[in-house]
């Protein structure tokens, strides 16, 4: 190379590092200067060293392929970090707390009096068609009235610099272990920048998570027994389940390790016999949680778990049914939900969202498919999505038919030109689009990770960042003071 920032093109996009060719943002000065001083081989060997540590540390995610079965892939990390000024971050942080607080009020209301529906602020039909509403949860009172203890919200920045919330993941959001591991790896390769860059640490997440979970324990005395419940090693996020259990010093259990007694108490099978469990951080979807209550064919769950939870003998995080607010149609109402429960204006805006249930907006969507992103209401991981500008006529026609058949199941949003961050492409540095997933914890207190997991679309021009779709990741630096 070396990197020539003067040749770095950012026209028409918002770049997180460079204001314009040759002009770094204030908080990115040290970083750009440092990178520019590296020669081609140095930058390349830093990236190679990072990839080697990832391989050796066994940081993986699992993908399924029809031909090869489940394969463990090394976690993709681009060493050039995404940077953000601490002042901006603090505003985002309070916006996230506000949002998740309101969502928890909403879920609790939905499973009790449904005041928001009675007051005409939320349509009953939307709830009636929600696939994540669990009638089994009606009337249950989880500790502190909190249902979504761990939330991963996806943030995107548009070309004008506005940060939007794109979605809230309230079921079993993953990615936090990669946020922590990315930092470990990047610290190894850029020690100089960490010495005096004002980069805020991210490492206290596991202890915050433990405190959050321990506060849910139904037993007031003694140290609560907190466990992480995983579907097992073939789950794509198994690495994370194991990592989190290890970091919290908790047992990592599978369904078969747990046992619910006749008096509705949960135990785990140990070499000394049965031992009581107080809090379960479950990484299994609702429908697989308990074959007695939900899918009878689930081999992953624990028969009787719902009985124990309803009896208040064990806490589940997230609570079953919390996913009712994790629905792309409900999403469209979140600004109203914030106003309704908290009587505050939303700090973070939603991406403008068209509900296909309303005739007027449905017609608008159908007419403008080529300019929009259409998403199924209840899929995650980027599956079943249509990205208008890169779609074929055939794909658009198919989507139009699906929308007409089941309008409740689709929302559409204008295409957001995600902001970019310089990324290593071969031996060059080019802008690549990113999003950001911070994690928000709620129980007796609230906590937001410092930054979060930055995901990056490694293909030129692509806006799809999901790791299951070939996306990569970056370390996220929240920078205090004039900084890096």
């Amino acid at each position, binding site marked *: 190379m070396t990197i020539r920032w003067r040749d770095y093109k950012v026209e028409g996009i918002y770049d997180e590092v460079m204001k314009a060719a040759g002009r770094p943002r204030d908080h990115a000065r040290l970083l750009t200067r440092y990178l520019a001083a590296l020669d081609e081989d140095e930058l390349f060997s830093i990236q190679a060293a990072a990839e080697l540590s990832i391989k050796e540390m066994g940081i993986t995610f699992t993908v399924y392929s029809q031909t090869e079965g489940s394969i463990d892939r090394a976690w993709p990390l681009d060493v050039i970090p995404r940077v953000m000024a601490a002042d901006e971050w603090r505003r985002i942080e309070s916006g996230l707390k506000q949002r998740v607080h309101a969502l928890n009020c909403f879920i609790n209301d939905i499973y009790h009096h449904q005041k928001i529906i009675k007051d005409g602020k939320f349509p009953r039909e939307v709830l009636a068609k929600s696939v994540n509403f669990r009638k089994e949860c009606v009337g249950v009172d989880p500790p502190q009235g909190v249902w979504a203890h761990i939330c991963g919200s996806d943030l995107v920045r548009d070309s004008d610099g506005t940060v939007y919330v794109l979605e809230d993941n309230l079921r079993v959001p993953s990615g936090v272990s990669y946020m922590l591991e990315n930092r470990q790896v990047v610290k190894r390769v850029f020690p100089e920048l960490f010495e005096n860059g004002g980069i805020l640490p991210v490492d206290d997440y596991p202890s915050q998570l433990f405190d959050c979970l321990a506060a849910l324990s139904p037993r007031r005395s003694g140290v609560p027994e907190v466990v992480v419940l995983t579907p*097992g090693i073939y789950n794509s996020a198994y690495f994370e389940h194991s990592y989190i259990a290890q970091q919290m010093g908790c047992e990592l259990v599978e369904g078969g390790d747990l046992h619910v007694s006749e008096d509705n108490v949960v135990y785990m099978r140990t070499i000394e016999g049965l031992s009581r469990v107080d809090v379960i951080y479950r990484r299994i979807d609702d429908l697989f949680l308990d074959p007695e209550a939900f899918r009878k064919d689930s081999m992953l769950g624990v028969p009787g778990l719902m009985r124990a939870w309803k009896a208040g003998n064990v806490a589940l995080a997230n609570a079953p049914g919390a996913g009712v607010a994790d629905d792309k149609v409900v999403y469209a109402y979140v600004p109203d939900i914030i106003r309704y429960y908290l009587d505050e204006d939303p700090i973070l805006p939603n991406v403008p969202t068209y509900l296909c249930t309303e005739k007027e907006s449905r017609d608008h969507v159908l007419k403008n498919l080529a300019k929009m992103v259409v998403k199924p209401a209840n899929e995650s991981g980027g599956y079943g999505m249509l990205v208008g500008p890169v779609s074929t006529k055939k794909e658009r026609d198919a989507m139009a038919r699906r929308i007409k058949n089941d309008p409740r199941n689709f929302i559409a949003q204008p295409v957001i030109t995600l902001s970019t961050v310089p990324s290593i492409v071969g031996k060059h540095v080019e802008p690549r689009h990113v999003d950001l997933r911070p994690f928000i914890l709620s129980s007796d207190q609230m906590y937001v990770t410092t930054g979060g997991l930055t995901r990056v679309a490694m293909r030129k021009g692509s806006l799809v960042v999901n790791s299951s779709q070939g996306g990569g990741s970056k370390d996220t630096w929240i920078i205090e003071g004039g900084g890096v």
Partner: protein
Amino acid sequence: MLSRVAENLYWLGRYMERAENTGRIVNVNGNLLLDLPKGIAPGWQPLIEITGSEESYRQTYSDFEERNVVRFLVGDNQNPGSIISSLSMARENARTIRDVIPRESWELINELYLYARDNLQSGLSKRGRYGYLKRIMRASQTFVGLSSGAMSADAGYEFLCLGRILERADMTTRIIDVRSASLIPSETSGLLPFENIQWISVLKSLTAYQMYRQHVQARVRRADALRFLMLDNDFPRSVYGCVALVDESLKELPTSEAPRSAVARLEKVIKSGDIAKMAESNSALHGFIDQLQVELGQIHSEIVRTYFHMEESAKPRTQSQAAATA
């Protein structure tokens, strides 16, 4: 400690030890054959017998050529006892309990598996084999060292040790059994120098040669070698030495009465053995070793019954365990 985790640790110990032992018998056999005249050399078939895998071997291979036997024992994915399969199973077990074992241990196993997989071609070549196997054996020993140096001596550690030591005792008895059967009788005096070499190779298969020389201080003879490998108090690969280690681990675990009495039974069998008779008669030796194998199997079953599959856990268990018993 979760029963499932204990079981995974136990099998992790077994698989790592199995990879090491298999590596050693291949290396030692290669070395031995270079020293023996063609007419009396036992070839490679005994290794298949030692590992008790004749049936599955014959499904793929029709002769006992070096190339085939080595491929089968080192790099054949279809052979559940091959080094590559053992390492892959060790890795799967370690992955499942990654939260329990020290991070360095996981990294070591992961790296070792990747090394073994990526360098297999060189490991199968005559020239590259020694270095390849040596690296695998050394990594297995590093794993043992890491475990004792970085793991709390808690129940998990004891299960890891139990798996390792029982696997080792099993291998020691198999090596003695098969090797003695294929060795020429001691009285064929003209061939004495070669008998010597063969017993040295048995000792070497068990890394016992050096210790034997230090502690027995006699030239290598069948009776002395047998006594050393069966009964020596201090050598960690002698059958008796293994039994003592197993008992020490069990002592640290809760409710260990049943497995410990199985250990006591094995101890009694070992002490009742008539080494002098075994030195003269292969069938006496073979019968005795059969007895030892049965008792070792009993200890394994008692451990499984006491800690892994207790009565109340009648539920079908997960894939990791199915894999572990393969």
